[in-house]
Structures are given as C-alpha cells and as structure tokens.
C-alpha cells in the first residue's frame, strides 16, 4: 500500500509539472492538443491523488502499522469510522485531503467550463496544477503520509482523543474542503488576469465557484462551533482562538466577494477590488491551512505542530508577489465601465457592506497576528482574548445587520430617498415596536437594541418576499405560497440570497441571546442532592461508569425540572481513552428546554460519587444551529441551476440599465 501511495504521488507530481508546461505552451502557441493534454493532466493528477487516498485509507482500515502515519494516528481498538477518519487527522493526511478536494473540484470545473471558457481554461488548468504541484512537493518530500517505520509496532498509538467525536468526523473535512475549494475561483482569477480577458465571461464561472467555496467553508465553521460547544466544555461555541480566526478570514473576504461581484455583473464596477478579494480569499485559505498545521500561533488546535512552516510561508510569498504583479499589470483593463451615480444606491450599499466585511477581516487578522508582532519587538507573551474581538467586531456586525435591512430596498444607480424611507416605514415600525417589548423582557439596553436591529432586517426581508409574491400574484394569478416558491425557484439568486440573510439573522439572534444572557453556576453535589440555577432545578442521580472498547467513560446523570415540571435528564461524560489517560475528553450534557440550553459540564468526581459540576443556562444557542441549517438551504438555492427561460434572459445585458439609459 505504501509503495502504491507514494508511487501515485510521485507520478502525480511529474504529471502536474507536465500539465502546467503543456497548458501554458498550448495556450501561447495555440496548440489545441497540448491544451487538451493539460486538461487531462488535471484529471489524471486528481485520479492519482485518489489512488493515494485510497491506499492510505486501506492502510488505515487494515491496520498496516508499518506506515508511521497510520501507527501514529490509529489503533486496533478504534471503531472503523474513526480509523477511516484518522486519515485526515494529521498534517500529512490533511494535506493529502486538501489536494484531493482541490483536484476533484478543479476537475469538475474544468469539465464544465472547457467549452464555454475555452480561452481561459488552459490557464485555469495551469494555475490549479501549480497549486497541486506545491502540495505534491510537500506530500512527496516534506510531509509524506507513506513513510515506513523500520519495525512495525503491534498496535498504533491511537487518535488524539479530542478528534474522537462525531463533530470531528465532519468539521475538518468541511473546513479543509472549504479552504482547498478556493483553488477553483483562484484559478479563474489568475486565468483572467494572464489572458487579459477581464470581461464578463469569467464572472459567472467565478461567482458560482466562489459560492461553492463560501458555502462549504461556512458549513465547516458552523460544524467547528458545534463541536466546540459539545466537547470543549466552557459553555461557548466560538472562542476567538487564533485558528478559528484564521479560518473565519477567508469566509469574510468571500462573503464580501459574493456581494460585490453582483456590482461588477450589473454595473461593471469594482473589478480591481473583486479580483483582489478572490485572490485574498485563496491566500487567506492557504494561510489558514498553514496556521492550523504549523503551530505558528498557539491555540487549542496546536496538536498539529510541524516543520512545514517555511515551505508554506515561501509559497504564500510567491502567490502574493505573482498575483499582485498581475493585478498591477492588468490595472488598465480593470477600469470601471460606469461610475457611481448616487450615494443612495444599491452600489454604495454593497460598497459599505464590503467596507464592513473588510474591516472585520482586518480587525480579526490584526488581533490574531498581534501577539507575533509584540513577541518580535517586546519579547512579551500576549494572548488576545475574546473581549477584543467582540468589542471590535460586535459593532461592525450590528452595522452589517442594519445594512442588511436597508440594502435590499435600494435601487441600482440611484434611489429616491423618499421612496427608500417609505419602504423602510413598515420594517422600521416592526423594529421599533420590538424594542420596548425586548427591553421589558430582557431589561438590558444593548441586546434589546441589537435584536431590534436584527428584527428590522428580518422584516425588510420578509417584506421583499411579500412584494415579489404580490407582483407574481397579480401577473400570473398564482396563489401566494406558490408565488413565493416560484420566486425562489425562478429568481434563486435574489430570493435564495434572502434565505441566507434570514439564516444570518437567526444566527445573530442566537449570538445576541447567548452572549448577553448566559448564566453559570458551579455545584458540588452528592447523589440525590439538588441544585438551582435560574428557573431550573437539577437533581444529581449519580455517576455512570462504563468500560468501552476504546477506554473508559464516566457520566454524571442529572434530572432537570423547570418551575417544578420535569424536563427530562442529561448525562455529561468524561472519556479516558486507552493510551491517553492523561488527556480526558468530554461530551457535555446538553438539554434544550424551550429556547434555553441546560449545559452541564462534569468537572470532577470522587470515589463516593460526589460530582463537581459546572452548569450553564445558554439561551438561544440552538438558534445558531437552526440558522446554520437555513444557511445550507439558502446556499443550495443559490447554486441550484436557474430554469431555462431565466437563464436565457440573464445572458442578455441587464434590461433595466438598457431601458433607462435609452
């Protein structure tokens, strides 16, 4: 297996290098055969990487402990799904996984666009292959997953206990997949800049693929939050840990991009900015992969320290220099076709949106690398904790929520201020009416205000659906529910986008509720004793010790009642895996009662069954997960192919602009 895997990787490297040369020469000299072989090189490289992945997974499943990577990440007592998942549990495997996803998505993109974007495609292939070349150099010579041990051990060391969790089966693949998927839009951006074909041709391709990356990465972040909430046991879901931050960065720039690309599509503006955003998203993705995997910044994820750092830094430097040089070279071709006509317009709304997203990305990056800077100059160890990020990003998020409520009401080119205000009356009234109610319920100014702003933007979004449905109803006679469904179906880009807006609003409400109204208490209870927290009474029933194939677990069982009504029970676990007894992990006992999560952490326990428990009441955290599901649904509607008649119309120049300019 090891020979098969490493053989596939070395052949893949050779093929990738050949593909780059073939693509570039084929495109320059216009030799279609060479271009074709570079496209086939992408598919071939992907296939070879798949072979290597297959070899590695087989080695894992057959417990082939001659492989150092397999011996270091798995053991015989692990269930097969964790054994298979251990494949991306370490640095070498995750780089292999990264190159696999990049390969699969690029192959698909090249297959779909090979005819329509004929001029771009050789350079797309060359760019993708250059990314793969870098990864394959790493996988072959620096961080090979197929290194053999001189003597195969009887059993492997087992997987890091923190990774043995269902959340970990999902979170890293999505997050790493999100990072690597930015290879495709990056490929299109580079191809457009190299060929100078900066017109509209590549926009649709790049927008779609940027949406794919943005969606996958968003899901990855959400699953990471979910895992942290269920396993780490500090009652929260986002700790502004450096690794979380760097993973958020490409998502922020990509979110800015999926908004501002609309301006370029409709109005031919912001070309330089969009190009910079998509290249930045790719660079930040590579940076994020590198930060996770290098231990550059200390974090809860630092179980992955390694020596690949200099390689990644070098690669990042090359990408930055090359793309900056290309961007400057193509500046004349990236001039805006049109000018902004009014400050009150959809264009400036999007610009403001981009400013806020860029500011959030900048602030987050700044806080994350600040300790590195101070360590260089001052030799003091600093940890930038959540307060900084929350105080900086909180107001920016609030501004974003407000903008989300106004933006959809703005017209392209210029809005009549009076009409804008008129359209804002109803949502404004809803938002203003919510404020005193929330203030009465919560008795706190800041969260009530923030939530009112979110409710205002929800009202705007709902009103947009109502308006669109009314127009359809009037013109086609469809009943309202059908009209709404048809809006989403036929105008997926607009009304699917609004679904994502609603998802963001639900998540925002969840964040507001859980950050402002978390209650925490510590209890030391003997079996049978009770403890009160808020309206909840917890009755501790005792410890539940179990021996499993992987080790031992201890669970504390508690009955929950609210205002005297029983609300079920929870069990909060600690796991002691064989070989990792000094690193106990946990699974929190979480019970959702209404909007509250009763969140129980088993801190300590003694022989007589006394348990030290930390209990949180986390209001509205479940909204974040619901919002996450809505986000997925909205993203899928955005990506769902538009029905045929609409696609033909979209292909024409925008009618509104043509009409009003006539």
């Amino acid at each position, binding site marked *: 297996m090891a020979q098969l895997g490493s053989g596939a990787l070395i052949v893949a490297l050779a093929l990738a290098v050949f593909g780059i040369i073939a693509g570039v020469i084929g495109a320059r000299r216009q030799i279609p055969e060479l271009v074709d072989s570079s496209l086939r090189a992408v598919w071939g490289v992907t296939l070879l990487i798949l072979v290597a992945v297959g070899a590695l997974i087989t080695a894992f499943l057959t417990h082939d402990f001659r492989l150092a990577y397999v011996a270091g990440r798995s053991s015989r007592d692990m269930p097969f799904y964790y054994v298979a998942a251990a494949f991306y549990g370490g640095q070498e495997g995750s780089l292999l996984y990264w190159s696999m996803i990049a390969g699969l998505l690029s192959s698909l993109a090249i297959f779909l666009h090979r005819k329509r974007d004929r001029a771009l495609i050789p350079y797309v292939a060359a760019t993708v292959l250059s990314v793969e070349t870098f990864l394959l150099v790493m996988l072959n010579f620096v961080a090979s997953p197929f290194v053999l041990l001189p003597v195969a051990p009887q059993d492997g060391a087992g997987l890091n206990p923190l990774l043995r969790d269902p959340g970990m089966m999902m979170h890293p693949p999505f997050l790493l997949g999100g990072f690597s998927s930015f290879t495709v839009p990056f490929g299109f951006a580079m191809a457009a800049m190299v060929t100078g074909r900066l017109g509209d041709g590549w926009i649709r391709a790049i927008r779609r693929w940027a949406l794919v990356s943005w969606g996958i990465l968003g899901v990855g972040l959400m699953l990471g939050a979910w895992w942290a909430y269920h396993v780490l046991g*500090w009652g929260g879901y986002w*700790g502004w840990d450096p690794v979380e931050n760097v993973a958020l960065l490409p998502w922020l720039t990509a979110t800015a991009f999926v908004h501002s690309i609309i301006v370029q599509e409709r109005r031919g503006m912001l070309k330089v900015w969009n190009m910079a955003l998509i290249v930045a998203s790719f660079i930040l993705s590579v940076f994020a992969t590198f930060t996770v995997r290098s231990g550059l910044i200390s974090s809860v994820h630092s179980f992955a320290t390694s020596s690949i750092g200099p390689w990644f830094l070098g690669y990042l430097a090359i990408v930055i220099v090359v793309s900056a040089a290309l961007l400057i070279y193509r500046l004349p071709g990236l001039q805006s076709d049109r000018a902004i006509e009014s400050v009150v317009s959809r264009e400036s709304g999007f610009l403001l949106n981009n400013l806020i997203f860029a500011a959030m990305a900048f602030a987050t990056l*700044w806080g994350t690398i600040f300790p590195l800077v101070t360590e260089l100059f001052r030799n*003091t*160890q600093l940890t930038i904790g959540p307060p900084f990020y929350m105080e900086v990003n909180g107001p920016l998020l609030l501004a974003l929520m407000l903008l989300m409520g106004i933006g959809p009401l703005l017209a392209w080119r*210029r809005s009549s201020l009076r009409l804008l205000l*008129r359209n804002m009356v109803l949502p404004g009234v809803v938002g203003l009416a919510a404020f005193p109610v929330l203030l009465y319920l919560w008795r706190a100014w800041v969260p009530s205000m923030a939530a009112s702003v979110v409710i205002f933007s929800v009202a705007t979004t709902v009103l947009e659906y109502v308006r669109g449905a009314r127009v359809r109803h009037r013109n086609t006679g469809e009943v309202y529910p059908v009209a709404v469904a048809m809006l989403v179906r036929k105008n997926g880009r607009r009304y699917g986008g609004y679904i994502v807006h609603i998802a963001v609003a639900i998540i925002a409400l969840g964040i507001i509720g859980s950050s402002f109204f978390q209650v925490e208490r510590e209890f030391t209870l003997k079996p049978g004793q009770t403890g009160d927290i808020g309206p909840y009474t917890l009755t501790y029933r005792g410890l539940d010790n179990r021996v499993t194939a992987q080790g031992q677990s201890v669970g504390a069982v508690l009955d929950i009642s609210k205002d005297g009504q029983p609300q079920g029970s929870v069990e909060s676990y600690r796991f002691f895996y064989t070989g990792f007894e000094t690193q*106990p992990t946990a699974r929190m006992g979480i019970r959702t009662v209404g909007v509250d999560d009763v969140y129980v952490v088993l801190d300590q326990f*003694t022989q007589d069954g006394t348990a030290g428990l930390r209990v949180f009441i986390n209001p509205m955290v479940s909204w974040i997960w619901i919002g996450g599901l809505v986000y997925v649904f909205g993203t899928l509607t955005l990506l769902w192919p538009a029905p045929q008649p609409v696609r033909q119309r979209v292909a024409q120049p925008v009618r509104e602009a043509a009409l009003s300019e006539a």
Partner: protein
Amino acid sequence: MLLAALVVLLALVLAPTVALADETLSPEALSIANSLNCPVCEGLSVRDSTSQLSGEMRQLIQTKLDQGETRQQIMDYFVHSYGVGILREPPKQGIMGALWLGPIVGLVLGAVLLGAFVLQRRGRSPGPGAGADSAADPEELRRYEERLLRELDGLDVGA
C-alpha cells in the same frame, strides 16, 4: 466492580483538580477568574480551563477574596506575577493601545478611501438618474413595482 473502582481511582489520580469539594467559588471569584488568561493553556480563561494551575489560581482568588482583598488588588497581584499578558482585557495603553488602534485606523482609512471613491466617481458623471425624486407617492410606488417586475425579469407580464 473492580473495574469501576479502578476507573474512579484512575480518575482521582488524573482528574485535573482533585480536591474538588473545596472548589466552591463565589460569583465574584468566577468573574475575576474569567478576566485572567490561563497561563499554561491556549486561549482559555482561568475560569474555563481545566488545568491544575488554573484550579489553584481559582482557589487563590477565592482565598484572597475571603481575606478581604479587592478585585483590583487581586488583578494587580496576578499582573505582578505573570505580566500584563495575564489579563484577558489588557488596559488600552502602551503596546496594547496599538492593538486597539489598528482596527480603528483601518476602518477610518477604509471609510475615507471609500468616500473618496464614491465622490470622485460621482463627480465624473452627473447623468440623469433613473429615480423620480419629485413624483407623487402613488407614482413612486408604481415605479417601484415596475422596477421589481423588471428585476424579476422571468415573468411574462401579459400572460
């Protein structure tokens, strides 16, 4: 039974802070613990960390509170022992000022650039607008719906 005893014994040896019955912390102690960084773990506060050192620090905070020390005195004590990096929210001065200044400078700079971009571009082409600022309200609403109709351009108006 033996195994269960073994588990408990193991847990006793390994559990981060064993002397747990002692850990009855007042809300004030928890709040102070939450404003300090755990010195040996990454990114967690003393309150949230399960490390032994953090457990000892929590006890120390409680002891100091019981001895009548104020929040400020306790915080000063930890800053004296561990440096200003121990604070989860360091004072916004000195080098930490630069931390807070960064995003503000960035945002202002971005806003200025954006403003300049919009104004300069706008100055270049004053062209007539698509909106109808002076029209009467019903007229505006009609135009809005027309615009929506055009934007939803998958619809056949006559059908």
